[in-house]
């Protein structure tokens, strides 16, 4: 039974025996197998092949969820870095650029580790396929990383008092540092948003159903995470924009989540409120709210700013892991593939569109 606070929108679900892993037949096998107790409430109109999944969950581990979070942080930080660069906030700029580089490198490592054949990671740049979010994403990631790396190295060089063995390159570096900041910021937005398309453009019920609003959720989550990190790393007097960005991010995140869950197909939305995913998403919302309030009310206090920053970082991570887990869970249970599709098909037929069904009589 779901305990989500949105229950009011949906009638309580009838008691239904569901065995995990789909090992045992949960499909409505009417040819009684003798020992199956008759369900008190008639089974909903949902048959499956012995309860086995129809689609397959992506074979991604937590590394990919971590990358979603790190990518968001890197993207936001690059924007903050550019902001710092333009509004002469050197500490914010430096911290943001360094955060961007660390986040994007950790993210890249996580991605390569999750590959089936890590030694072939360069094949990601074998083609430019517009129809493949991951191909587009790989190019975005590469371009972003280039810019982030150059700007960050410049920072490091400055921090280490020009002791890096750059020789003649130093002048080139300083010349190109500004444009690199721009270049990274230019690809920051797409880096934050493409991961939403990556999840949306799959047959995983919950991700696919959320493809309209997911970009907004991920973008906001990226913003509040990077702002949070900036509030942690940067002294209060330079972190003004970060605080504002954080508040905007939290607002965007909460609104986008609500709109997303509301406009999604109710059945496909269930995994967002159940089990591990449900818990994570609930906590992410609370932490985001807390972080937002903290920033709003006492953002100037260094300790409160840091605490709020951490809360926001946690909130963003939980959002990513929550959405990630909900998607995988929705792929494992056939009901989330079958019922929404049956409703969709029935709706189209009711509306008189009868020519586009995969099942035909002739």
């Amino acid at each position, binding site marked *: 039974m779901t305990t989500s606070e949105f229950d009011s929108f949906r009638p309580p679900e009838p008691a239904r025996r569901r065995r995990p892993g789909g090992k045992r037949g949960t499909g409505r096998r009417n040819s009684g197998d*003798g020992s199956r107790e008759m369900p008190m409430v008639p089974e909903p109109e949902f048959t499956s092949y012995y309860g086995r999944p129809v689609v397959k969950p992506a074979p991604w581990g937590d590394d990919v969820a971590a990358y979603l979070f790190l990518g968001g942080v890197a993207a936001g930080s690059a924007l903050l870095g550019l902001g710092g660069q333009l509004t002469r906030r050197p500490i914010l700029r430096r911290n943001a650029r360094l955060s961007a580089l660390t986040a994007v490198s950790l993210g890249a490592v996580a991605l390569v580790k999750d590959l089936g054949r890590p030694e072939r990671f360069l094949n990601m740049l074998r083609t430019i396929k517009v129809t493949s979010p991951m191909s587009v994403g790989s190019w975005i990631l590469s371009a972003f990383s280039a810019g982030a790396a150059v700007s960050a190295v410049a920072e490091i060089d400055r921090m280490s008092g020009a002791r890096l063995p750059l020789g003649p390159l130093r002048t080139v570096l300083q010349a190109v540092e500004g444009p690199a900041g721009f270049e990274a910021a230019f690809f920051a937005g797409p880096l934050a948003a493409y991961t939403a398309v990556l999840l949306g453009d799959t047959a995983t019920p919950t991700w696919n159903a959320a493809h309209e609003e997911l970009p907004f959720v991920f973008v906001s989550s990226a913003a509040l995470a990077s702002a949070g990190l900036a509030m942690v790393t940067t002294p209060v007097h330079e972190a003004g924009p970060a605080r504002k960005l954080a508040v905007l991010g939290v607002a965007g995140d909460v609104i986008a989540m609500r709109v997303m869950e509301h406009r999604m197909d109710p059945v496909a939305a269930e995994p967002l409120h159940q089990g591990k995913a449900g818990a994570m998403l609930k906590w992410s919302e609370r932490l985001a709210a807390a972080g937002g309030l903290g920033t709003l009310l006492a953002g100037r206090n260094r300790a409160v700013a840091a605490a709020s920053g951490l809360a926001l970082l946690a909130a963003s991570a939980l959002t990513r892991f929550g959405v990630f887990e909900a998607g995988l869970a929705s792929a494992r249970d056939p009901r989330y593939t079958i019922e929404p599709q049956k409703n969709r098909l029935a709706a189209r037929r009711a509306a008189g569109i009868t020519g586009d069904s995969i099942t035909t009589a002739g």
Partner: protein
Amino acid sequence: MANADCIIIQGSNMAECHPVGYQWVAEAKARGAKVIHVDPRFTRTSAVADKHIPIRAGSDVVLLGALINYVLTHDLWFKEYVSAYTNAATLVHADYRDAEDLGGLFSGFDPETGAYDTASWAYAEQGGDSIDDPGAGTEHGSDASARAAGHQFGSGGPPLEHAQVQRDDTLQDPRTVFQILKRHYARYTPEMVQDMCGIDVRDFEYLAHAITENSGRERTTCFAYSVGWTQHSLGAQFIRSAAILQLLLGNVGRPGSGIMALRGHASIQGSTDIPTLFNLLPGYLPMPSAGRHDTLSEYLEAIASKKQKGYWTDADSYTVSLLKAWWGDAARAENDWAYDYLPRLNGAHGTYETVMSMLEDKVEGYFLLGQNPAVGSSNGRMQRMGMSHLKWLVVRDLNLIESATWWKDGPEIESGELRTEDIETEVFFMPAATHVEKAGSFTQTQRLLQWRHQAVAPPGECQSELQFFFQLGQRIREKLAGSEDERDRPLLDLTWDYPTDEHGDPDAEAVLAEINGRHLNGPDAGKPLSAYTELRADGSTSAGCWIYTGVYADGINHAANRKPGQEQGPAASEWGWAWPANRRILYNRASADPAGKPWSERKKYVWWDQEKGRWVGDDVPDFPVDRAPGSQPDPDLGGAAALTGDDPFIMQADGKGWLFAPKGVVDGPLPTHYEPQESPVANALYPQQQNPARLVFPRADNLSAPSAGTPGADVYPYVFTTYRLTEHHTAGGMSRWLPYLSELQPEMFCEVSPELAAERGLEPYGWATIISARSAIEAKVLVTDRMRPLAVGGHTVHQIGLPYHWGVGSNAVVSGDAANDLLGVTLDPNVQIQESKVASCDIRPGRRPRGEELLALVSEYQARAGVTIETGNRAVTNPALEGIEPGPGEGGRAAGGPG
């Protein structure tokens, strides 16, 4: 089968056990044929058949008898066909008494030996005498060998003195076969079928209509059966009843007709043609028996009298040619062509009798050649215990099958009955070559020989059986070379000089040439023969197996003919070579009417061409090719010459299809329903419960469960049947070692109906223990609607399905308990096949006990059922007793009840 208008699959699960053959049934069905599957279980065959009719295992004769009765009473039999081509009009001897008169027995039954004296079933003769065995000699009555008389006759059945029979072509005389048949099956009614088989009358009507509407001039019905019919104590009679039905409907010898035997192994037909069987010599000549075939002339007379019709009269040329092939020059006219080199039988020496003599330490050496008896033979425990008494055992196989490792990891080691350290048997495991590592021919189920070319050499120390036995023979002959002992003459005079290739592998084609036979002297000495009609009894020809003569005609290996099927007609006679004489449908003379014209344009096959004066058609005519339809040769001529124009059954002594079998079947001239050895149901047709002539083995390790009406029958209330799955192969030796097949069906399971599962509390896909009077095994439970409880004999009978592929061992990819451990040994008297398709058991949830407790469980059940050595083994059911209390003469034993 592709030409059939209706296909009845009974006693077979064709789509699972012969899937690629099933394409022809699918072909017929696509053209509108009706396919009906009669089987205790709804199987994958039923899934694609038009209709599945669930039947209680073991009651097939009731159903087929009722169909015969239906055909006769509704006057739907094929009149011209039956009167011309069968022995319907023949009169039977006056002494004959039917099962209707003797409460289920026929005349001539001797209770002591449990066998029939078939004299009273003979045809009536002009002078009122009976056409008896030629040279029958004095062996009537209780001769020890009569007990298993079935093994004495070759495939053509026993001889009749001559073919002049009394006939009443009006078919009115009560002693005609037709009237006897009518009277015999009068009580086999649809209601009886409902009561005994659990088939409701509507289904019976459906089946009867389907068959009769698809028979006659224009349409033909085909039956397909397999071990589902043969593995019963009444197996031969199951097939006989189908033969009678098909003869009555004119469905023999015509395209899309007949009774298709679906045999189980690649060359099982070959291994009965050239028989590694105890009772036959190559070409279905009988193995000589002491007391009956002491001299060559006695032997030949016992096979066929010179005056009877048909090709069996030339048995002398077949036999002499065989002896010449084996012993070459040592076989001379003076020593009866070395006839005395042949060992003699003095009773049945089947595999089960052999195992029993192993247990009495009479057998020292045992060769297992690609067979896994520890799992595949009935009463698995007896098989393994028997082998523990051997001195030496040679297992030749591809994998370390359970029959090679029972001494290390067999069930008896686990139950403590055997201890590895105490087992004296020496075991040689010798790796064999697979079918692609040796050249040779298989004979498939339609008598077609197909040559296999050698693709690669056998790996490691693997050898083909050809090479192994050739080398073994050489070694033995070398070791006996100097022997003066008269016993060793047959071995030393043997023709054993085959050309070998560089690996020492004998040339298989040379062996095939010897099998085909050759002229020995005269102008074309050494040249291969081209037909068995060329064989002579004067020692001028040699032939290893007369029915295969022609396979190597003109020195060409016709088994290797490979003209693509697409470039030939449906009979495809230039692909491989079918014995005899490359003929594809036997008795195809019957596909034309007595005047030689096809019965119908649609079912045209072989007909008489007036101008050419020959039989012509799509196949090699199964008839003297120039014998005009109307010809009536002098009956005294005998042999093929005596065949009249309308005698399609050229191997029968009277040239006719036998509705009534005066000879050749040892447990009754007409199929009569008897209950299996173990059955929860009493025989409602006769007081006689089981087949009186069945071969029983009353032993402590072969106890039978009490049958219906006797006390203790409720201890084993359920019927179980064993069968194969399409993913595995018989005892698993060629499938449970293959990952790709093992993962398709990984675990031993039993199939039960939801009602039985509820009654016994069996959990779907949980464990269950099945207990029989012999042993207990465990299996996962498949609860399915495909098993249906049947209302039989007034109460509900539950049936349990058990596939038998698994065995206990540690070498296969998948292992499990062997279903055959549950089975006992009760044999069909005609062919010695065990009853493994129906037996009684109990089932309960949970895994079976291990070690000692397993034996305790089995004996506890035996005690509760009051089972003793006599239970179920009484030949004649004592009508007086009817299973209430044992009669006065029975002594105090509670279990003495009938049958």
